[in-house]
């Protein structure tokens, strides 16, 4: 009954970015288990790539993980490794990614939590695994905090975030997305997660984040983003735009509500938006908290050189297809 009622309002819980990447890793591990030749290995890889670009095209973390898998496949074929060895390496990489995603998220959260001090009133939007982790760390250190949570339409996952923060042990105030500016004067810090971070420091996050950051900026309230480096979209380095998927009325209401609206009712429902770097005060990663404009420096440090070598995922798929075609 309760859920039914919420569905009328458009409640529809999506995976957080971290949850989604972990889900894809599990899916890949299960599917790769049955692979015994390169042809089906390629087909599976291609399928996972298209599944991800269909479901979460902006998820840099998943895309980066797929980049790694693609590189392993290419290297192993060019080195004439047996499918068995390639298979083992893929599974090892998936295990490593799984561990890394959790550890990096925790470490970024730990760093972000240090910015929260007694008495802070924090606003958060949508539902981010790493933000919730940061709040858990703050609670462990007994920091006295209060939270404002937006309901975060479309999807209304703010309800779940509010519930979670409250169960961690903090007082929570739930507001509609439109009330952010009304309350901004009471807020000390904005803390949000990310779907991806572009190399210029622009943050791709749940739609509404950019509006909240603009409002925070107007009120001189600081905005912090918790995003492990695996969420940095390297493809943007070469001018790629992050593709932002949009949805329709399905994310705003149930079919019976639509039936009560005019026949030619149309809704445009973006899922993510882009917060420009000038509205972001700090990005908390596992390697520390830094200004969004400093991302190239961090990436140079991570990849050992600048610019790092990257192929667009589609190119990578094409390349694998070519070399597999050659050796079959």
């Amino acid at each position, binding site marked *: 009954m309760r859920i039914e009622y919420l569905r009328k309002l458009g409640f529809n819980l999506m995976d957080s970015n971290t949850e989604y990447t972990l889900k894809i890793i599990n899916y890949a591990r299960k599917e790769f288990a049955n692979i015994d030749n390169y042809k089906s290995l390629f087909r599976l890889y291609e399928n996972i790539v298209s599944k991800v670009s269909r479901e979460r095209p902006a998820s840099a973390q998943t895309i980066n993980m797929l980049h790694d898998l693609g590189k392993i496949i290419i290297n192993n074929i060019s080195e004439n490794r047996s499918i068995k060895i390639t298979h083992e390496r893929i599974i090892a990489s998936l295990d490593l990614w799984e561990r890394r995603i959790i550890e990096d998220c925790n470490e970024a959260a730990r760093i972000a939590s240090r910015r929260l001090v007694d008495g802070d009133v924090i606003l958060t939007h949508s539902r981010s695994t790493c933000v919730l982790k940061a709040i858990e760390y703050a609670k462990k250190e007994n920091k006295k905090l209060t939270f404002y949570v937006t309901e975060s339409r479309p999807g209304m996952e703010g309800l779940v975030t509010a519930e979670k923060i409250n169960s961690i042990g903090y007082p929570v105030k739930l507001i509609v997305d439109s009330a952010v500016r*009304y309350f901004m004067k009471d807020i000390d810090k904005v803390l949000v997660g990310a779907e991806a971070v572009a190399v210029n420091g622009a943050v791709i996050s749940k739609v509404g984040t950019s509006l909240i950051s*603009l409002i925070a900026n107007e009120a001189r309230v600081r905005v912090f983003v918790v995003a492990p480096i695996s969420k940095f979209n390297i493809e943007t380095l070469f001018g790629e735009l992050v593709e932002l998927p949009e949805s329709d009325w399905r994310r705003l209401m149930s079919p019976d509500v639509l039936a009560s609206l005019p026949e030619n009712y149309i809704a*445009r429902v973006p899922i993510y938006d882009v917060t420009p770097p000038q509205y972001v005060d700090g990005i908390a990663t596992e390697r520390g908290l830094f200004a969004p404009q400093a991302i190239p420096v961090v990436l140079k440090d991570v990849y050992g050189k600048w610019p790092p070598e990257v192929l667009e995922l589609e190119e990578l798929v094409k390349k694998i297809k070519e070399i597999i075609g050659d050796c079959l």
Partner: protein
Amino acid sequence: MKVPNKVLEIAKAIRSMRIRGAGRIARAAAEALKIAALEYSGPLDEKSFRKYMAQIADLIISTRPTAVSLPNAVYYVMYRLMTSQGDINELRETVINAADRFIQESIDAVRKIGEIGARRIKNNSVILTHCHSTAAVSVITTAYRMGRVVKVYSTETRPFFQGRITTRYLLEAGVPVVQIPDSAVRYVMHEVDHVVVGADTIASNGAVVNKIGTSQVALAAHEARVRVFVAAETYKFSPSTVIGELVPIEMRPPEEIVPREWIEAHPGIEILNPSFDVTPPEYIDAIITEIGVIPPQAAILVLLDRMGWALSKLKQGEIGKIFFEETLEE
């Protein structure tokens, strides 16, 4: 004093927000005064009638303490009653005529605002509107009929989804409308040419009190250098703000946001539901009224012109509200 049932019904409907929107509230208030005059059944002397009307006026004003259109409609009618002389039948006529005139002027105002506002809309415009405002819809549909509007973005406007009402009205007028969630305002703003919104109350400094979210729509427009027009009848201007009164922002019940079951299952979560916010005048390019376009900072001009009587009363008494029963003793 016996209050006619129909008047009580209107008062209840305003209080429970069954009648909502500043214009409708104002017209309902005038209508209630008219019904009260028509159904007056007390002693047939002038003094009793005046006292009865003053009590009805105070009752109606008390139903929505934050809606300025409501007291302004009552001021309009009661001012005419207070300044006229005659026997009870003549006074009754005065009230009825004043109420009818207010209702007619209020309806005409919407049309005039539409005509004046539409002139400000450029060709091939994309317009964004928030909540539901009859005056804003009038501007948009008039501009559309002039061939100037290619698309309208209408925000859902949580918690009450008044954007769905806007969408319905605009679709009925043939205007292409796309609904967006409130959080997507900045996302689409770079495509928008004009923001057109209504107002609940306009303060004497030009600040616009309107549906929650309006101020962040205006901020997003300001960032993108998109012009913001506020369509508002002159009865939206608040006389009491001239003497420094703040416009109270009503906190509405949490059940408007999530169902009671959810609230009861989450006792540790406080749900805050302010119904309005304040858009500062610097984010507003013009206020479009039925007597012309003004910069928001000139709001005081409208107040002096239209609400002079109420202004002097408020200043005289140093009060934020006029209590009509007290004015009888003068």
